[in-house]
């Protein structure tokens, strides 16, 4: 079972996000970088599947040269090899990203391609599905559990307060949600090994896509001043009044 897991380098945003002066990107001058929680879980799932069923786990990132840091993070967790599709760091639209990732995956023998359900930053909910179509593979999204049987995968997805279990033939693309597992911390030997590992690097050019960013902005939530109903237990009667006013009690 050879597994490919795709990750994206994104800034580690804190309590407030500020933008570059040209409003084209998050100002990450003073921020660390990471991958989304969904993708951390996808990396962990790739490791578990490769360990349980035999085979290798490969991590792929499309991004600037600095995305090597995120690839090495995955290698430190135990991923076997890494592919970096190097860009100039500009934002790619989902069609372009998917085309280039599919091209890189084509011809390599992967039984399973894992993605995060959506990227942390642009959140387009579609790169994994587009890669599946480009490679002629089935796609399942929102996985909170993956079970592999003979040539098929059973994928568990939340549906209201219950669950839906999807069946898909393999090979397949599956996009993963946080909560499917608890990602491990990289070990010290893992980190040392990852530091020295070779990354298979190639340069990628963006094909044309139909969704073009103009500018980013920080939304202005309506801020009506908060009404403080009181302090401690003494506020309870006032809280109940408000609950009755808004019709929930």
């Amino acid at each position, binding site marked *: 079972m050879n597994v490919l897991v795709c990750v994206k380098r994104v800034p580690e945003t804190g309590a407030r996000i500020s933008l570059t002066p040209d409003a084209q990107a998050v100002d990450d001058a003073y921020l660390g970088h990471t991958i989304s929680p969904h993708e951390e879980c996808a990396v962990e799932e790739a490791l578990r599947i490769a360990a349980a069923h035999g085979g290798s786990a490969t991590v792929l990132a499309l991004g600037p040269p600095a995305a090597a840091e995120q690839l090495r993070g995955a290698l430190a967790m135990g991923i076997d090899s890494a592919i970096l599709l190097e860009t100039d760091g500009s934002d790619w639209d989902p069609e372009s990203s998917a085309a280039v990732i599919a091209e890189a995956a084509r011809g390599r023998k992967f039984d399973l391609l894992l993605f995060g359900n959506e990227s942390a930053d642009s959140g387009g909910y579609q790169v994994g*599905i587009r890669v599946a179509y480009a490679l002629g593979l089935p796609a399942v*999204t929102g996985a909170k559990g993956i079970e592999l049987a003979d040539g098929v995968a*059973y994928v568990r997805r939340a549906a209201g307060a219950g669950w839906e279990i999807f069946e898909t033939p393999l090979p397949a693309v599956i996009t993963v949600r946080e909560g499917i597992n608890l990602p491990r911390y990289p070990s010290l030997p893992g980190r040392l090994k990852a530091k020295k590992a070779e990354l298979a690097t190639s340069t990628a050019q963006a094909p044309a896509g139909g*969704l073009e*960013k103009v500018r980013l902005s920080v939304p202005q939530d309506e801020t009506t001043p*908060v009404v*403080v109903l009181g302090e401690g*237990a003494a506020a309870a009667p006032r809280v109940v009044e408000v*609950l009755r006013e808004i019709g*929930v009690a």
Partner: protein
Amino acid sequence: MILCLVEPGELSQEALAFARRLGPVRAFSIDAGEAYAPGAWAAGIVQLIERDSPAAVVAAASDRGAEVMAHAAARLGLPLAANVVSAEDGEPMRVVRQRWGGSLLEEATLSAPVKLLTVAQHAVAAEPGGEEVETFVPRLNEDDLRVRVVRREEAEPGTISLGDARVVVAGGRGVGSAEGFGVLQELADALGGAVGGSRVVTNLGWRPHADQIGQTGLRIGPDLYIACGISGAIQHWVGCKGAKTILAINKDKDAPIVQRADYAVIGDLHEVVPAIVAALRTPGAG
């Protein structure tokens, strides 16, 4: 003419309200058999586009809406603007869409013969419209059914799902332990609501992961959200800001959630929440 995919639930009503701003709307649902198959729904959308030549197809950014629109976009080789909050028709169409789960907005242009859009959850208010919903039965081939639901596990009868609850009582680090959620459950029960948590508490294992409200969990839009011991980092805020009213219960009057809430009680949730439950049980109180 704008085609709008309708599924059961509030989110599709929001998508319809959004679609009406773009032009005359034709609402449809897909009947592709008992077992949900994303490929079958996508086949339906593609066939409807061929039949009706709409200017745009709109769906809620629900699990299914987001999924089948991406399938349709991939089949048609067309761009898809996901999590849109507003759009201005034209060539290209100008859209504003959410990024970072809604903590940033992106203004973008969408160039395509048919514009495909999903509408961000709880970003547009549902309005009654009363369109007839056409049930479309697509022609299917084997490939459309490669991925399908083979089994469902229903929730315990009487369980109120977080996505549907009118009242959600959620806890953060301030709850202190899994057991600490007992009082939150009592308050939720008293109000006919459901209990949720922040990413911290699901990561600590105090609540099951399915209860997480936030960017990587659920986006909810209840009538009332009661945030207990939650500081309100952006990644949590984007999950709950769709609530009509937010009440924060927090020891720290400077916590971001307190500043952004409609109402706040400053104090220890372990004292405040039981007091509210007691007051609710007192007839005539308030």
